[in-house]
């Protein structure tokens, strides 16, 4: 009797395999088809890990002085390393130097002696920037910011769709470490994973403009970024105006440098629309109109001369 039951079960499973296997192979949720080992192993959990590593990089950016989930995090809602890099719009409020508040008891007061207790940034000379041995460090020259890179790299590997990882990494690579080639290569990796990202295109434009000294290429990249922004952000209920502000302002400044006044005015209009201080941009618009008028008048004066 047991042998018969086993035989029946075996035959049933064999029959099920023949129908389930083809369905499983064509199923979109089949992670076995993925070439990415991390995706197979972790599934959607890798996004949570990627976010954790991104925050970890910000912890390193602060030399370990960072609030836990139990502390007041209002001053750390946007990771400072991303806000300083211009990769994310800063939404931080509150006191970043004293998120712990006064000690709650003697154990808390005693325990603070064994943890980092001062708000510092890696690119400002690190944890001992005030120490005598580090007096000679020029704040802007400190390359300690390299210490955030392993976590950013891990974050990008776990979640290739997390765009701020690419833009933040590229900023610190090129700005503080002089690794422009690596920054561009990393952004290209990001662009392959996110072909419609206006943020990555914008950052590539900055590399072309600030490091490659190639304004034509920068303009092309930023115009493409603007086109992508219009295509994907504009239809949204709450579009990313911070990115528009960055793209429009850089395009405007590039046009100003090249005395393309019509173009300059056009981008100033966009800049004004996205800016939290439109009055400032209005002044620039007035100046630009005067410059355009002067530029247009110049050839006429030259032409009127005998």
């Amino acid at each position, binding site marked *: 009797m047991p042998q018969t039951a086993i035989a029946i079960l075996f035959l049933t499973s064999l029959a099920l395999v023949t129908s389930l296997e083809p369905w499983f192979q064509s199923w979109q949720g089949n992670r076995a088809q993925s070439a990415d080992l991390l995706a197979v192993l972790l599934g959607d959990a890798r996004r949570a890990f990627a976010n954790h590593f991104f925050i970890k990089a910000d912890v390193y950016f602060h030399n*370990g002085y960072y609030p836990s989930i139990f502390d007041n995090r209002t001053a750390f809602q946007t990771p400072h390393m991303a806000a300083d890099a211009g990769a994310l719009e800063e939404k931080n409020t509150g006191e970043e130097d004293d998120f712990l508040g006064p000690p709650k008891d003697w154990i808390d007061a005693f325990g603070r002696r*064994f943890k*980092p207790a001062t708000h510092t940034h890696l690119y400002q000379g690190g944890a001992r920037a005030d120490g005598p041995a580090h007096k000679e460090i020029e704040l802007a020259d400190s390359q300690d910011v390299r210490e955030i890179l392993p976590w950013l790299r891990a974050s990008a590997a776990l979640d290739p769709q997390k765009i701020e990882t690419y833009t933040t990494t590229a900023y610190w690579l090129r700005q503080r470490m002089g690794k422009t080639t690596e920054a561009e290569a*990393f952004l290209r990796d990001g662009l392959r994973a996110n072909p419609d990202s206006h943020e990555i295109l914008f950052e590539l434009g900055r590399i072309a403009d600030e490091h490659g000294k190639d304004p034509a290429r920068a303009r092309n990249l930023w115009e493409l970024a603007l086109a992508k922004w219009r295509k994907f952000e504009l239809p949204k209920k709450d579009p990313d105006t911070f990115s528009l502000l960055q793209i429009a302002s850089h395009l405007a400044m590039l046009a100003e440098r090249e005395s393309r006044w019509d173009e300059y005015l056009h981008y100033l209009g966009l800049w004004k629309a996205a800016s939290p201080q439109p009055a400032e941009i209005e002044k620039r618009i007035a100046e630009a109109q005067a410059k355009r008028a002067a530029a247009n008048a110049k050839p006429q004066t030259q032409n009127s001369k005998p």
Partner: protein
Amino acid sequence: MRAILTLAHLVILEMVRRKDIYVLFVLTALLTLIAAAANIFDDTRVVRYLKEISLTLIWVSGFVLAVTSAARQIPAERESRTLFTLLAKPVSRWQFIAGKFLGCWLACGLALLVFYAFFGAVALSRERSLDLAGWAQAISMHWFMLAVPVALALAGSLLWAAPSSNSTLTLVVCFGIWLLGRHLHKVALGLPEPRATLLTLVYFIIPHLELFDIRDLIVHRWPPVPWLFWLGALLYAAAYTGMILTGAWLLFRRRPLN
């Protein structure tokens, strides 16, 4: 004192013969070296992540080693019936507990020396300098901290017969305190009564193992802890260890050997 030292010597010999320390060390070294092999934008001076991974593995290994070695001491002696022989000799129950504790704790100290030497080598290979004061504080505080889990596991082995259940429970408690201990009071402040009072009580009763975790200071190259506070932390660990061992002795004194 002689009896205590003899017992401790036997425990250390037993731990050297066993493979636990070697396995944990090889695992720690292997994982650290794999992390070191990662290419971080062709920059070979990136070191802090390596220090953190290495120190975290050392902390986990320390807990595992301390708890598993201490948890099996009394059950093993009972099982092999050597406990009766030992206590039939002029070895009191207090001396037995103290000897077992000292042996486990010293063995943990020896293991920590090896682990921290490896950590120092890893840090030196990238940083070209080692903060000796910080390194010495890290190892000494870690060693004193491990006295508490060793004492807890010894006391636990008098309450739970099976070393596996004792090890698991002690490790859960130790990891829980290490990771969440310092936040308990903050959480309690936001709870309704009587949970707030209960959690506050737990906060003040538990030994705060997380105080001894100065990994952040070492990893991010902060100045060493003021030496007076360092000494205070060692005394704190000694006080808790003394209390737990006294409790273990009181339990053991009243317990029939069979």
